[in-house]
């Protein structure tokens, strides 16, 4: 038997009709009133059915709209995911979370700036077929970007074979930790490049890439530059140029940093001071430091002591000391202590 949602109402109407037609209501006045009531009930019933139908129809329409919105939202999500690849994840996050305003505003912040490129890129690649060049560049950028993201770098841009990154914005762990994270990243990148060189060599590339890295710590302007229609989240300033200059002076496969960075990371690496350089836009003479070897990372390293202040510089690497040198170091330190004692008197 078919189910009728309004079965009860239909039965009432039928009963009313039967009653009215039966002639059981003998009073003419009452019969007239009953007929009116019966008609009003039929009208109300029709109205109810119509309202229920309309409500269902609106609900269906709303569900369809919700479904369309859901599809659109998924499409936007996919699109924003694709667009995200054109932005540094930190910038993407800060824009999508609403922390970052998409307007032409900049801030002055102390950042550690990383600049790198491939030594003799043009000469190295001029004999390469476009497919090989694409493979080499893509594998190089993919590997380096993964390391950069692991260390929390904000990847500013790729310029041909060069990379510009920075630490300290939009997230910062403090100037010291930002500089140290940058150096750790640069070291891991050069180590990975050494592995990649072997891979590329084995694949038949005669002149594998060699990367040079420059690092500098200083105040930069960071934010959105460009026009209201097309802007870039980037950094500008003399300190950025300095990172690029340091990179240009770095050894192939090497890392060259300014004193400002060096002072934050000196217990992490052994360095060699290089000839001071002058950089346009920077008044001071820049003392570059080239990384010569890596010390066991970090602050728990008990085998390396690096302390200093104006007029005092101590670097002690217990792992490297021979027995003979250890004795000599003891004598030198004793002399230094005695000398300090005399001056104190």
């Amino acid at each position: 038997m078919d189910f009728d949602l309004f079965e009860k109402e239909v039965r009432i109407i039928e009963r009313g009709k039967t009653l009215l037609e039966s002639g059981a209501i003998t009073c003419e006045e009452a019969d007239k009133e009953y007929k009116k009531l019966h008609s009003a009930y039929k009208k109300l019933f029709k109205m109810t059915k119509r309202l229920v139908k309309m409500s269902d129809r609106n609900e269906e329409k709303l569900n369809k709209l919700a479904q369309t919105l859901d599809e659109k939202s998924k499409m936007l999500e996919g699109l924003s995911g694709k667009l995200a690849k054109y932005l540094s994840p930190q910038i993407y996050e800060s824009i999508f979370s609403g922390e970052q305003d998409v307007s032409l505003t900049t801030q002055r912040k102390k950042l550690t700036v990383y600049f790198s490129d491939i030594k003799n890129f043009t000469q190295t690649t001029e004999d390469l077929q476009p497919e090989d060049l694409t493979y080499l560049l893509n594998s190089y950028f993919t590997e380096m970007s993964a390391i950069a993201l692991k260390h929390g770098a904000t990847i500013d841009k790729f310029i041909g074979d060069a990379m510009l990154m920075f630490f300290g914005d939009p997230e910062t762990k403090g100037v010291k930790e930002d500089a140290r994270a940058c150096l750790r990243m640069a070291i891991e990148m050069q180590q990975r490049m050494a592995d990649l060189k072997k891979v590329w060599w084995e694949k038949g590339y005669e002149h594998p890439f060699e990367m040079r890295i420059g690092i500098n710590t200083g105040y930069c302007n960071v934010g959105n530059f460009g026009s209201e229609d097309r802007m870039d989240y980037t950094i500008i300033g003399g300190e950025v140029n300095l990172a690029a200059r340091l990179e240009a002076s770095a050894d192939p496969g090497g890392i060259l940093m300014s004193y400002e960075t060096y002072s934050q990371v000196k217990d992490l690496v052994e360095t060699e001071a290089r000839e001071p350089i002058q950089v346009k836009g920077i008044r001071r003479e820049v003392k570059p430091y080239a990384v010569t070897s890596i010390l066991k990372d970090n602050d728990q390293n008990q085998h390396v002591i690096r302390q200093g202040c104006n007029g005092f510089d101590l670097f002690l690497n217990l792992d490297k000391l021979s027995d003979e040198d250890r004795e000599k170091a003891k004598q030198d330190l004793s002399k230094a202590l005695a000398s300090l004692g005399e001056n104190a008197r």
Partner: protein
Amino acid sequence: MDNILIAATERSPELDFNFETNTFFLKGESYPEDVTEFYGAALKALEAHVEDLDGGTLNFTFELIYFNSSSAKILMSLFDMMEEVAEEGNTVNIVWVYEADDDNMEELGEEFGEDLEKANFKMKAIEG
């Protein structure tokens, strides 16, 4: 009786009740927060006005894009009222205007119009 003209909002339609010319017009979307507050006074005024109508002609145009259930109840009351006015010997012309591609509004107009026996009812499709 003073004419009533209420501008449309996001949730309520334009309401234009001209008692001098006997033309009445509802246009837009109708899902006001309080349906009685929005329609109450206008409906009461219309009810009072049609009581005095004697052998006159009344034109009512509905041009709605969307309405909720409470508004539907108001529309049904209006249709009822118009039918009663026609039953009393007046000429009542109702036009239901809907966007050509809006099947829902077309169907609702047909349903509302099917109960009318004395009032004239016309459906008019327009380009959305």
